[in-house]
């Protein structure tokens, strides 16, 4: 098999390919991310950024205590984030555990939100500690239940111990299950990869294996989507496009709670990967609390004052 003509699926070709990646200087990457965080986004550009960010949210609930009722409420909110203002765009997707996929899909269809995809966290999320058989079945179940996007986790243990081919083959196998039926997002769990060199290497590994999106984190491990990590991943998709003419998406998730955080992410995208990535098909933000802050800032921009949190729905 050929993966973009860059590796042939063998251990040695994968190793050679990843070895050629330039290093990441942590101090320099942090400095660049910090500089971009000083961008001042005001007035019209802020209004645009808020709506764009809303359209990119993967509205997420990943709790053991999730109930069908909570998931249905989340779906309603995803489709009409502000029931009093229909100009607010719907979010990018609803992201839930496997067993909630059917409930979410059914509810979205019933409220006329057929175009809003359901994303399922799969492959023994969040730890990825299960047999291959279980992971494949987990993915298949989610797709059958109506998931159009699969958020899989990589085996960090294998990656960190240098068994890169195992991680690669696992992604390839899940990719095969997804086929044309579902988009594949690969969660690197950068908080466990620790170094930016690892983030770059894992990003390429996932892209080569067939990821449609690379995603920072499960949201269960801190630190999650830090600016330097997102910067390095955006550089990776930009450079991968130069090599292959294929655009891979990026999804930061975890720790992005405020409008300010979200706008900083958009600035990173704009000045690193470029404006082509400022699109829900290529950039998503995995979040739950963020949406309400975006809505409150949106109201503030139109009304001129901060409303009480009682004016946005809690779910």
């Amino acid at each position: 098999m050929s993966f973009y003509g860059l590796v042939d699926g063998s251990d040695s070709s994968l190793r050679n390919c990843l070895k050629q990646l330039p290093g990441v200087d942590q101090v320099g990457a942090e400095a660049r991310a910090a500089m971009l965080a000083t961008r001042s986004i005001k007035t019209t550009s802020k209004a645009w950024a808020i709506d764009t960010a809303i359209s990119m949210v993967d509205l997420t609930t990943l709790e053991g205590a999730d109930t069908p009722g909570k998931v249905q409420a989340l779906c309603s909110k995803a489709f009409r984030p502000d029931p009093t203002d229909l100009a607010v765009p719907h979010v990018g997707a609803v992201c839930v555990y496997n067993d909630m996929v059917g409930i979410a899909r059914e509810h979205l269809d019933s409220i006329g939100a057929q175009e809003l995809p359901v994303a399922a966290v799969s492959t023994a999320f969040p730890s990825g500690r299960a047999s291959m058989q279980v992971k494949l079945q987990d993915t298949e179940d989610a797709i059958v239940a109506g998931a159009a996007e699969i958020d899989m986790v990589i085996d960090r243990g294998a990656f960190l111990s240098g068994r890169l081919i195992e991680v690669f083959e696992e992604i390839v196998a899940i990719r095969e299950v997804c086929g044309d039926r579902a988009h594949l997002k690969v969660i690197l769990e950068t908080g466990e990869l620790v170094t930016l060199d690892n983030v770059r290497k894992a990003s390429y590994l996932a892209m080569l294996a067939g990821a449609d999106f690379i995603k920072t984190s499960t949201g269960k491990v801190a630190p999650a989507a830090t600016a330097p990590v997102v910067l390095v991943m955006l550089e990776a998709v930009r450079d991968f496009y130069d090599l292959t003419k294929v655009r891979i998406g990026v999804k930061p998730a975890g720790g992005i709670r405020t409008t300010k955080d979200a706008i900083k992410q958009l600035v990173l995208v704009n000045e690193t990967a470029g404006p082509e990535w400022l699109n829900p098909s290529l950039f998503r933000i995995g979040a739950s609390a963020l949406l309400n802050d975006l809505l409150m800032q949106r109201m503030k921009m139109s009304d001129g004052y901060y409303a009480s949190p009682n004016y946005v729905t809690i779910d």
Partner: protein
Amino acid sequence: MNFEYAAAPESRSVVKIDPVYGHFINGKWVNGSAHFNSINPATEEVLSSIALGSTADVDAAVKAARNAFDKSWSKLSGRERGKYLFRIARIMQERAREFAVLETLDNGKPIRESRDVDVPLAAAHFFYHAGWADKLEYAGVETTTTPHGVVGQIIPWNFPLLMLAWKVAPALATGNTVVLKPAETTSLTALLFAQVCQQAGLPDGVVNIVTGDGSTGSAIVNHPGIDKIAFTGSTEVGKLIARAVASTNKSLTLELGGKGANIVFGDAAIDETVEGIVNGIFFNQGHVCCAGSRLILQESIADEVLEKLKRRMDKIRVGDPLDKNTDLGAINSAEQLAKIRELTAAGEAEGAGRWSTNCVMPDKGFWFAPTIFTGVTQAHRIAREEIFGPVLSVLTFRTPAEAIEKANNTPFGLSAGIWSEKGSNILWATQQLRAGVIWANTFNKFDPTSPFGGYKESGWGREGGRHGLSAYLKGSAK
């Protein structure tokens, strides 16, 4: 989708600019006899009328400084001097926004840089030297701990307030009094600093500020009542000053021009290297004596680095310096713009490949698009002369020895940069390079604790750190 950043200008209401300024002599404002205009280089708007210091003005300032040295400043303990310096540093921090906006208006540099670099660093220099004032015996300097007396200081227009801090803070910490002349085009923050001296209750005459042009500077250099000259500026003027003081008892430190080599080895972390190249040459419009103005790339990665560099350069936001999102502001003066144009025209005439970004520049004011020249050889003027603008000359090398040879093949020796992921490579290269400041995997990083200065025609002496103290102290301790 296009993410346009709406204008985000810093308000200029925080600064109050007088229509006319005099000199600050003996703690008072003294009217000048002649004046010249100071303009905002981004708009060509006249900001104020600045006094042109005459020989008589300089003489009055020197007398005031001598009097202050004899009667008050030299009588104070180090601890008392330190208290004044701490006070000045704190006031500078409190009035940071005022300083930043004024610097940007007068100099043309982006508010992001004056706010995040110039002003905080200037305050840091005062804090750092305030700490030394009562500890000179323990600084390990090879001089005595006796001050010279009256020092004459002439500073450039590229970092007006920061260069003032580099000069004034160590002079006062070591017990000297000061006659300072800011650059002709950028006097305003020095005049605001005079107000800070008043606010801090600094004894009259300890800091005197005489504004003016080259003739005023010459009057300072040639004044017999001055014990030491400290100059930052062009090598050309530095040589004139060295000649002028050669037959006198004056001490002299010079911080002059540069043609910094930024060497990129094949194993460098490319994305961060590209950031470092941009920071090295486009920081402060390239108006930086230690700018990394010669990029020396290893052949094996030259194409990749240049491609990424051009893409990154296209993101540089050129325009209103007061806009918080501006990366590259205005060229400081029409004269400097003419000099940049002359040298870049020479680069084209000599056959180097020119590439500039497609940025839209304002109609008024002095602007120059970020530019690189490829295919530059050692024989080109743009590889030898200091352009002092946003213009990068790119050369390539094959072996590390060739990189060093090219880097050192210049009359200057102020700064150099090395980009490599290999520690041994960095250590080897730093030993070979003839430059006073060498950065590894970073560029244009400044800190008051770190001595700064040049080899060869880039200057004499060091500023900052413990080494910088000795320049303001007399003789040898042995």
